[in-house]
C-alpha cells in the first residue's frame, strides 16, 4: 500500500515555504484575484511569485497545484482564461477547477495538463466523476466534506480517478459551489467572487454582553468575553427558532480526521488535504508537521494516536470533530 500524498495550503509565498519545510508533498495556492475561492486582502500569488514558487518547490521535490476554482462570470471570462494561462506558463503540476468552462479552457490549452476537480464541483457520485474524467481528462477528484468514510470507500472502488479528501480545517456542510448564504447577505460568494463572508462586510462589536459578530449588519452570534468564537459566516450563525437559540446549520468546530487516516488509506484515498489558505505560516507549519508525522507513522506500521491531539488549539471554537466521516445519520 503506497503512502498518502499530503496536500497543504499556501495562501502566500511565506506559507508555501513553511508548508514545504514542514513536509508537504504538494501545496495548493491561487492567484491574486477572484478566480480562486480564497480571494482575501493581502493573500495569494502574482504571476512572478507563482513561477518562483513552482521552481522552488520542484527543486525540493514538492508539487504546486493551482486553484482556479471559482465559476467564470458571464461576460468576464477573460479573467479565468488568463489565470489558466498564467498557471500553465508557471509550470504548475495541476490545476484545480470546478467550472466546466475553466476545465474546457485548460484542456484546450494543453492536452496533457493535469486537472483536479475542485471540491467546489461537489461531485460525489461515480456518474458525475466519470463525466468530468471522460470529458476533460480529470485525473483527481477532491471530495465534498459530506461523505462518510464508508461512502468514500465505496466511491473509490467505482471511479477511475484518484481521490483526495479533506482531513483538517474548516468544515463546509453545504453543497459546495452552490451555497448562496454569503451571496444572500453580502452579494458576494465563494463561488463567483472567491470570498465566503467578504471581510469588508464583517464587523465585531464589543459590549458588556460579550462580542457580537455581524455580516452585512446581520448579527451572527454573540459570545461572552473570553469564550471561544467561530468564523463570521452565516452557516456558523446562532439563530432563535421557536424561542430557542442554537447553531442551526453547523456548530463552530473544525475537522480533524487524523484518526481516520489509516481507514482512508485502506479505502484507496490517494491524497489528503489540509484546509486553510487564509490562516498563516504558523498554522500551516504546525498542521503539516503533525500530519507528516502521522502519515510517516502509518507508513512504518505504527499508530497515529500520538499526533491526534496536537492541533486542538488551532480549531475553530476550540473544538475538533471528525465531520461527516463518522456520521451515522442520513
Amino acid at each position: 500500500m503506497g503512502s498518502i500524498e499530503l496536500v497543504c495550503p499556501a495562501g502566500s509565498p511565506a506559507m508555501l515555504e513553511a508548508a514545504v519545510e514542514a513536509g508537504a508533498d504538494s501545496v495548493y495556492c491561487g492567484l491574486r484575484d477572484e478566480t480562486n475561492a480564497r480571494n482575501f486582502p493581502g493573500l495569494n500569488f502574482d504571476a512572478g511569485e507563482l513561477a518562483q514558487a513552482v521552481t522552488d518547490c520542484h527543486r525540493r521535490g514538492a508539487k504546486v497545484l493551482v486553484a482556479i476554482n471559482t465559476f467564470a462570470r458571464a461576460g468576464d471570462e477573460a479573467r479565468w482564461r488568463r489565470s489558466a494561462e498564467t498557471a500553465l506558463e508557471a509550470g504548475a503540476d495541476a490545476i484545480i477547477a470546478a467550472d466546466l468552462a475553466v476545465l474546457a479552457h485548460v484542456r484546450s490549452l494543453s492536452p496533457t495538463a493535469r486537472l483536479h476537480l475542485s471540491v467546489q464541483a461537489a461531485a460525489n457520485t461515480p456518474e458525475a466523476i466519470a463525466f468530468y474524467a471522460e470529458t476533460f481528462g480529470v485525473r483527481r477528484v477532491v471530495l465534498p466534506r459530506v461523505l462518510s468514510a464508508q461512502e468514500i470507500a465505496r466511491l473509490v472502488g467505482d471511479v477511475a480517478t484518484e481521490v483526495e479528501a479533506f482531513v483538517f480545517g474548516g468544515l463546509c456542510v453545504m453543497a459546495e459551489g452552490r451555497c448562496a448564504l454569503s451571496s444572500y447577505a453580502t452579494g458576494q460568494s465563494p463561488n463567483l467572487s472567491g470570498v465566503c463572508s467578504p471581510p469588508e462586510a464583517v464587523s465585531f462589536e464589543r459590549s458588556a454582553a460579550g462580542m457580537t459578530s455581524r455580516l452585512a449588519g446581520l448579527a451572527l452570534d454573540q459570545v461572552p468575553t473570553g469564550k471561544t468564537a467561530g468564523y463570521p459566516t452565516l452557516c456558523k450563525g446562532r439563530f432563535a427558532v421557536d424561542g430557542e437559540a442554537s447553531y442551526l446549520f453547523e456548530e463552530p468546530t473544525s475537522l480533524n480526521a487524523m484518526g481516520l487516516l489509516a481507514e482512508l488509506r485502506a479505502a484507496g484515498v490517494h491524497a489528503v488535504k489540509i484546509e486553510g489558505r487564509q490562516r498563516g505560516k504558523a498554522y500551516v507549519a504546525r498542521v503539516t508537521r503533525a500530519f507528516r508525522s502521522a502519515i510517516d507513522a502509518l507508513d512504518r506500521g505504527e499508530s497515529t494516536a500520538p499526533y491526534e491531539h496536537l492541533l486542538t488549539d488551532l480549531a475553530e471554537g476550540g473544538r475538533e470533530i471528525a465531520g461527516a466521516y463518522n456520521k451515522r445519520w442520513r
Partner: protein
Amino acid sequence: MLQLDNRLTDQALAEIAIAMRRPVEVLLDRAIRRTWRRSPAAFGRLGRYQGCRYLIAPTDLPVAFELRLESGGGQVRVVRRGPAPGCVAAVAGALADLLALFEGSADADAIFFSGALDVTGDTAAVMALHNALEAADLRLADLLVPAALAPGLEPFLRRLLDWRRATLRPRGAHGID
C-alpha cells in the same frame, strides 16, 4: 479604593511612557524601514490600506501604538489608550500574543477563536495587515532591540515570548469530541 489606586497608577505609567516615547518610536520606525528594504513586496500586500493608520493596543501595557505602513517604510507612534478616530482598525490583545502575530509565530485565527483578541473597525484592513506582516518575515528582535543587537538576542527573546504565551494560554485547555 484599590481600584482607584490602580487606575491612578495606570494613568501615571501611561504619562511616563508618553513622556519617554521618542526612543521607542525611533527604534520601531527604523525596524519598519529595515523591513521594507528587506521585503518591499510585503508592504504591497496592504493594497489600498497602505498609508492607513492601525491602532495596536496591548491590554497589558499602559499605552497603545499607532502603526502606519507605506512604500519606503512607515511610522509607529506611542499613544494614550482609548478611542482612535483616525485609525482604520484596532487590534487589542496581550502584548505577547501581538508580538507573536507580528512575527508570524502564532496563528491569528486560533488566538481570535480563543477570545483573546479583539478586532474592531475595518476587518478587511486587519486581514491585509496580517497578510503583509506574514510576508514581511519579521523576527522578534527586529521589533524589540536595535539592529546591532538583534542576532544575539533573538534566541533569548524567543524563549521569553514562548514562556509568556504559555502562561497566558495553557495547552490542552480545549475539548475534543
